[in-house]
């Protein structure tokens, strides 16, 4: 009897169980932007540690399997298991670098999540990311409920422009021009 009561209490207290999809998506994005801001804004962090923390935030917040699927598309079939493993290992760090290059400039203020809305089966979470000129950059995080993983970011958009689509285009061009090896080299070099 005590065990059942404990289980019910645990379920009641669990945010995932209680939250609506919008709330879960919002919570996921809030976690992501706070974690990335913390990693980027802390002047005391060594560059390697900053990158590590940022990569961790991306790994936790992004649906990396989906990113991989969309970024590579049918080209994934041309990867050897070893190449695929290299890709999967390099992707979070690459995305972390990309994230930092786009949103790591106005760090004196906290980012702010401003709203959510449904788009087909996903939820768009709007946020304002501070910029170095004092203005805010409106960013939308596309969040999908991934079975077994919960709400995860599957795309980031600024002004309607999808990071995922832009990167897919760039990866496709690299694969066409330099092959799998060229793409992996690019990925492992990261965004400076």
């Amino acid at each position: 009897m005590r065990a059942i009561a404990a289980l019910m209490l645990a379920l009641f207290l669990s945010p995932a169980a209680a939250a609506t999809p919008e709330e879960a998506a919002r919570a996921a994005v809030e976690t992501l932007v706070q974690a990335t801001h913390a990693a980027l804004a802390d002047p005391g962090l060594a560059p390697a540690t900053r990158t590590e923390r940022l990569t961790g935030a991306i790994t936790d917040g992004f649906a990396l399997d989906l990113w991989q699927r969309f970024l590579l598309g049918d080209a994934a079939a041309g990867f050897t298991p070893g190449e695929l493993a290299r890709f999967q290992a390099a992707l979070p760090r690459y995305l972390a670098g990309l994230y930092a290059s786009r949103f790591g400039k106005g760090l004196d203020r906290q980012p702010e999540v401003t709203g959510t809305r449904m788009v087909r089966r996903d939820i768009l979470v709007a946020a304002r990311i501070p910029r170095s000129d004092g203005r805010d950059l409106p960013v939308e995080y596309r969040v999908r409920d991934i079975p077994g993983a919960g709400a995860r970011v599957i795309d980031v958009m600024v002004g309607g422009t999808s990071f995922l689509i832009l990167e897919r285009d760039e990866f496709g061009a690299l694969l066409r021009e330099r092959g799998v090896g060229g793409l992996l080299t690019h990925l492992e070099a990261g965004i400076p």
Partner: protein
Amino acid sequence: MAAPRRALLALGLVTALAIAATVGLLRVDSDSSRLLSPDLPFQVRAHGLNAAFPDLKTAILLVVEAPSSDAADAVTGALTLALAARPELAEVFAPSADPFLIAHGLLYRDTGAVEAALTALSGASNLLAALRADQTVDGFLAAVDSAGALAAGASADTGGLDRLYTQAAAVWAARRSGQAHPFAWSDTLGDTPPGGVVRRVITVQPRLDPARLSPARPALDAIETVIAGLDPATAALARVAVTGEPALRAEELRSVTSSIGLSFAASLVLVGLILWLAMRSAPRAGLSVTLLVVIVALVTGFAASVGALNLISIAFIVLMTGMGEDFLVHLLLEIESRAEAGAEAASAAVQAAGHLGGSMLLAASTTSAAFFAFTATDFVGMAQLGLIGGVGVILACAVALTAIPAAMAIWPRLAIPRPRPVARAGRGPSLRGVMRIGVAGAVVALIAAVVAREARFDADPINLRDPDAPSVIAFRQIAADPGLTPYRMSVLVDGADAAARTAAALQAVPEVARAVWIGDLVPGDQAAKLDLIDLAYPSLEYAVSGVPVTLEAPLPPDAVRARLLARLTVPGASAAAQAFGTELARGDPAGVEGDLFTFFPAFVARIGASLGAGEVTRDALPSPLAARFVAADGRLRVDVTPSGDMGEPAEMARFVAAVAAVAPGAAGAPDQIVGAARAVGGAMILATTLAAIAAGLLVWIATRRGIELVAVMVPLVAAAAITAAFSVLAGVPFNYANIIVAPLLIGLGVNSGIYLAHAGRAGAAAAFESVAPQSILFSVATTIAAFGTLGFSDHRGTASMGILLTVALTATLVASFTLTPAILALGARVRRPGRAHPG
């Protein structure tokens, strides 16, 4: 005196009856597909296809051509809307204006193209949002400046921006030179670079009015009204042409009749002049013309009672004018010759009829037998002409032999000879001269016979029509477009499996560009494409309804312009940026703002429509589209388009054979054209062989002289070879219009040979000293004058008829004059070796 009057009165009454029959019964069927026996295999296949898909043959096509996709779509949309409101039209369908196909258009492109288009749109979504918010020149420049700044900041590919700069520069430059160049948004922001001609087709099913000569006329008039009613700004965006079978037929009728008046007037003057030269008297020329009209009226009455005339049998008028004039001229000149020798008018007529009557009857018998030979073929059009011509020749001979003596008896003055403006030949050439001329003629005929083997029959109706007619120009444009070509074949099958198998088998054939069944209209790889659309969905939504992001505080328009100008013209900027910068520096000409945004709302609306894209199933396809592939009885049509040039007969034949090898029941225009050419070729060989045998037999029975038979038949063959050789060398193939030369050549050729052989019995030179050469010359010249002017017609078929008639009749004349006397002379030498003619 009473008998001649009764004869003329009776002739008048019969002529009146014939005219009444003509008025009451005459009908014309202009469908060229019914010129050949319906039992021929390709006709059976065509009938099966037409029965299953009747709309394919009656469709009217509007071809819209514009310099950009946006312009083509704007005009197509406006036309489709207006046409749909017309009660004269049963159905209007344009794929590019159909809401379902617009919404699902991305799914019809290959996956790579879908990805490229969505990547471009995603990258441009903020630009589009900004442009939606401010559709002014300043708004455009601010959006472009912002997009440029973003691209520079992100080190992104500026290829898309370069296309935008190029298009903007063209808008500015065009306006500066006083012209409009609306910004082509779809081509610029899509993945297809602007340039070239964009073609759209609207398919219209007319409500046919069977009571009219042209059943689609009300629909065609309605379409013309709609096109004329387009607002001038929209109309200026594109060229619109109307084609399809109903439009082609209507314009064909117009082109046939447009120059007929001038042609008729020229013919009348020329015929009058030649008859005056021949007869030396206006009354005799008048009698000749009157009796010719009587002959044509009598034969027309008979023709009307035979049944509906077709495109070939209607040419009996040409045939009877030539044959009728032949009998009249020969007899009238013989009468004049007798009168010159001192005979009284009535007596001269009786003497002439007695002298020439045998030859005339033999000529009439042989010619009508030759014409009747055409009735034994599958070439229904020519068979009907053979029947009418065979009866007509007998009627013409009877009229000449009864009416002329009767007229001479009633009006003796008709026979009075007058001073001759053209001297008779008088003394003929020497025997050596006759032989030399004969050898020359034989050499020409032999060379012609070699060339003539390349002669062909062109059964493609489009080649008969005026090449400058708008419907023909439009037809040729779509014929060159593999997706739109009317030269397509169809295979009818039961069930989806059979359709898929047949399409796959045909697609593997090199002569086939595409083989499509309704299953192919359901896009492939939909899951991947829908994934891509889903991925880009927020970007597309943002483009059509998002609030633009600005990365900086708004600047005054002048400052934005100055900054953009600086970015465009900075050293190292792309050529496209430099070009736009140059234009922008020269200021904004009036009208630029309108041109920038003419197509913008429609472009955004199309993006918005694509947000509704979902899985396409066969049942969801628009019904006008599905109806082209599914018959009322459930059978499925596999549509097959050629990879080769269907303007080349050999390629068309290869295409038909290749398709038939996979699908023996395939039908369609190429099958009909190739089948008709073969059927007509076979029919003409059979008919001319039978005609030659019949004519030869009759000549042999009448004369019992082998040399006369040869003297009649050899020039005929030579004239046919020369005509066919001309057809090859001049690139004027035989067709449904000019094939009339075959029976006319046989008729006049046999007649000329008989008259010359008859006159040459006394010796080869005697043939030239008789009235026969002059009669033949004037008879042929009159026919050429009557119909040679058709060579100037805009209608290519009619023109080719005029040209080939002139050539064939001239060849008949030349062959008769060169070969007949030489053969007779040769025959005389063989019979009497060592004796030469004194001439």
